[in-house]
């Protein structure tokens, strides 16, 4: 597995706001097929890292490499084109567009996309997520949970190799939480790579194999779930010392 370059890689990644480093020289490599959890106390830079790795924020230092190729200055739409999908902490939907239209946007944004094919694919994903019956409803009329699922569906339309999920379990009822876990597991078994940021350590533990912990912009632990759980630094970071 080490012979092929990582699917996505951050090398010395840095981002500062004012005088503070939100992300402080981060090295992170995610290989194809992994299911990685990214956790850390509030303000540790997790969401900023995702934004940097998906083109939503400009990098102040270091590199991002996708399959070994450095992607300098690539906008978010470029990352999407490379198969890097993401969801947002606060669901960002096209509120006044219908559910199916939300799905068609990324589908048709791919070069050479054929409309009939994209519609079929969109319906397939909606079916998978249990949203098929809501196809014609405006996205803003969906429940909070349904909106989260729609956002996931929208990311799936990119045929992503890797999916960054930013707090998918935030404010979600236990039933939906289990649903999301099942969806992620199914999608992972189909060969997709995941990086999940969340505070719900219970859900994370049920899902991931590898855990990366950040604190104050830096990576303080990175390894198999069991090992990281015992890591003293991690425990200290969470207890605020």
């Amino acid at each position, binding site marked *: 597995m080490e012979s092929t370059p990582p699917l996505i890689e951050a090398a010395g990644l840095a981002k500062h706001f004012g005088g503070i480093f939100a992300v402080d020289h981060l090295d992170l490599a995610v290989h194809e097929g992994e299911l990685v959890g990214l956790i850390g106390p509030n303000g540790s830079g997790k969401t900023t890292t995702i934004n940097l790795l998906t083109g939503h924020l400009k990098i102040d230092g270091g590199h991002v490499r996708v399959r070994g190729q450095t992607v300098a200055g690539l906008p978010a*739409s470029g990352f999407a084109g490379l198969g890097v999908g993401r969801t947002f902490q606060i669901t960002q939907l096209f509120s006044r*567009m219908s559910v199916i239209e939300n799905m068609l946007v990324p589908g048709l944004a791919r070069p050479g996309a054929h409309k009939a094919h994209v519609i079929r694919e969109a319906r397939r994903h909606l079916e998978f997520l249990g949203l098929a019956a809501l196809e014609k409803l405006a996205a803003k009329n969906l429940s909070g949970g349904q909106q989260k699922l729609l956002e996931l569906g929208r990311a799936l339309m990119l045929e992503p190799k890797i999916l960054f999920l930013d707090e998918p379990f935030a404010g979600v009822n236990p039933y939906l939480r289990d649903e999301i876990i099942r969806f992620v597991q199914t999608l992972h078994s189909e060969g997709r790579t995941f990086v999940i940021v969340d505070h719900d350590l219970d859900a994370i533990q049920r899902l991931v194999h590898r855990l990366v912990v950040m604190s104050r912009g830096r990576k303080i632990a990175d390894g198999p779930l069991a090992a990281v759980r015992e890591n003293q630094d991690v425990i200290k970071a969470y207890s605020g010392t």
Partner: protein
Amino acid sequence: MRRLDLASAALLAILAVIFPFFVNAYWLHVMIIGMMFAIMAASWSLLAGYAGQFSFGHMGFVAVGGYTAGLLATGLNLPLPLGMLAGVLLSALLGGVIGWTCLRMSGPYLAIFTMAFSEVLRIIIVTEVEVTGGAGGMNVPQLFHARTDLPYYYLILALLMVSVGGMMAVVASRWGLFFRAIRENEQAAAAAGVKVTRFRIIAFAIASSLAGLAGAFYAPYIGILTPDVASQDQMGLVVAMAIVGGMESLPGAVAGAIVVEFLVEALRSYGQWRLVLFGALLLFTMRFARNGLIAPGWLRLRNLAAPRGARLAKEAAD
């Protein structure tokens, strides 16, 4: 429902073609002006309503189209159609440039910037009197040498149908989807792979080229072009037309323009009160009927024709 839409469109087209034979020269003129405004209102609606870019510089592009056509015709003795084409192309180019410069701006910043652009243009036209004739205006030769305005009428009708038809095709295509996605949530659109930069520029280029087209028609038709065409009051009129017609409906904007223009003429005897009325109408519509007056009215009429179950489903989806 599409059949009803197509049928009504066909009916309207037929009515439009035979219209000149039922009215006198005065009302023909009013209709011509109305259709010209319709192109301006519909293209503004595309940019602001569909793509979400509230540009108050639209009339600046009308001026670019008109003055380019006029200057090339009078100054370089270029045949007018060529001058008009040049006007359209220059407007498209300038529109794309403005769209590109505005990329980091949104909402009120974009509005202010485009308003400033239009004002600067207007000031230059007013000040450079030797070139443009200043506030007194610039004479532009006629396009047709006919006794009536009939050729102008059919020309603007053709231009209107082509431009609105073209815009509707764009809106129905994936480009329309991308415009709306950008309007709804630019960040999400980028995350979904939409090349936001490219499409914002395209939206500006399309809208301003059509504004330039309207200006290029206006110049020879009226025969005299003044810098007022780029004034904020004119912009306000076009905005009112688009809003009354329905911000997210291209046919609505066309209807709004024609209705408002006819009202402007019909109420001519009230003089200044007309403009007050339109200002009030604009405010009222904005405040209480944000989706416009004409387009929602039409939708309701159309839905009445459908069986009840389908009607409810339609209303949920609309």
